[in-house]
């Protein structure tokens, strides 16, 4: 009975969603009035950044990104306080089986390559697909591999929080430097250079590298906390 009611309500909801989105006029109107061409033109003519998604995330909507990084920091803090433990209760990662020698030797080989790939992705965030968020998560994946393969591999929470705080302070500092140069918060005050150079786009690569460090530290700390639970 309950399932029948739920399926009926979902059918009504799905009908209205389908009427909204499958309407042929939906797309035409949006393409006519959208901001797409404005962003694309500004990116290539003023900011000289090759990747438009990076330009939107860091420059046009950089303030949103600051809030988003803060939400991620709050998620990591909330997880740490929900799964709170006294310092001497933190034991081994007994929740997972010990890895075989093939897995541990292989992950030692592959770990530097993953870190290198993550660093490449966030340094070239303004030229190729990728950026701080992607590079940070790739680095966190590398640390996850090491944490699973070696039971005695440990990360210092203090180092992680120092990296995270400095990256966050750097983000806000570069935002405020825009004020100093007579603009607005997160104004692009450095010279933008030539399109498709490694050093181009002004302040965009600097901020995205800081975001990469912050995301990597936050996600690594989050995984480290949840891996130390034991049932």
């Amino acid at each position, binding site marked *: 009975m*309950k*399932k029948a009611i*739920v*399926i009926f309500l*979902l059918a009504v*909801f*799905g009908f209205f*969603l*389908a009427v909204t*989105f*499958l309407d042929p006029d939906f*797309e035409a109107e*949006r*393409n006519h009035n*959208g*901001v*797409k*061409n404005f*962003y*694309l*033109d500004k*990116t*290539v003519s003023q900011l000289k950044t*090759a*990747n*438009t*998604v990076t330009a*939107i*995330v860091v420059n046009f*909507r950089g303030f*949103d*990104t600051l809030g*988003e990084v803060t*939400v*991620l920091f*709050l*998620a*990591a803090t*909330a*997880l740490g306080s*929900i*799964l709170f433990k006294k310092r001497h209760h933190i034991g081994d990662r007994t929740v997972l089986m010990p890895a075989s020698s093939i897995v541990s030797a292989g992950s030692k080989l592959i770990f530097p390559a993953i870190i290198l790939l993550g660093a490449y992705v966030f340094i070239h965030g303004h030229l*190729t*697909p990728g950026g701080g*968020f992607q590079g940070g*998560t790739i680095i966190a994946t590398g640390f996850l591999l090491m944490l699973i393969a070696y039971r005695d591999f440990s990360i210092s929470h203090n180092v992680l929080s120092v990296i995270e705080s400095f990256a966050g302070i750097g983000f806000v500092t570069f935002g405020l430097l825009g004020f100093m140069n007579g603009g607005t918060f997160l104004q692009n005050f450095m010279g933008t250079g030539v*399109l*498709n150079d490694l050093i181009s786009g002004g302040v965009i690569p600097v901020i995205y590298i800081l975001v990469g460090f912050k*995301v990597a530290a936050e*996600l690594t700390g*989050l995984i480290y906390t*949840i891996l130390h*639970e034991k049932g």
Partner: protein
Amino acid sequence: MDTTELIRIGVYGTSILLILIGLYAVLTKRSLIKIIIGLSIIDGGIHLLLIGIGYIKDGTAPIFSPGSENAVARMVDPVPQALVLTAIVIGFGVTAVALSLVIRLYRHHNTLKIDEIKNLKW
């Protein structure tokens, strides 16, 4: 009916179906982990819907390369991509907090079924 129209209807229809399947799991399942799986399916459906909105006919990725500075008309919309990019990272944070709450609830009540967890305080 041409190819672009078929892709459009297919992507929109699939993402709406994904949202409905996830909502069904959230509304009818009793296991807390199943509910969070339903939430992540809804997440995926919404991301697909937003990316589908940005797609245009014969589009290319919104990344400029030497010689393609005038290809603006053929590029897909970058704004939904930037939104989805941050939404995925936030979704991971939300899932992690929800799962840590599940672990705490299990330790206190020794069950994951929501109809057996009756008292509201731990």
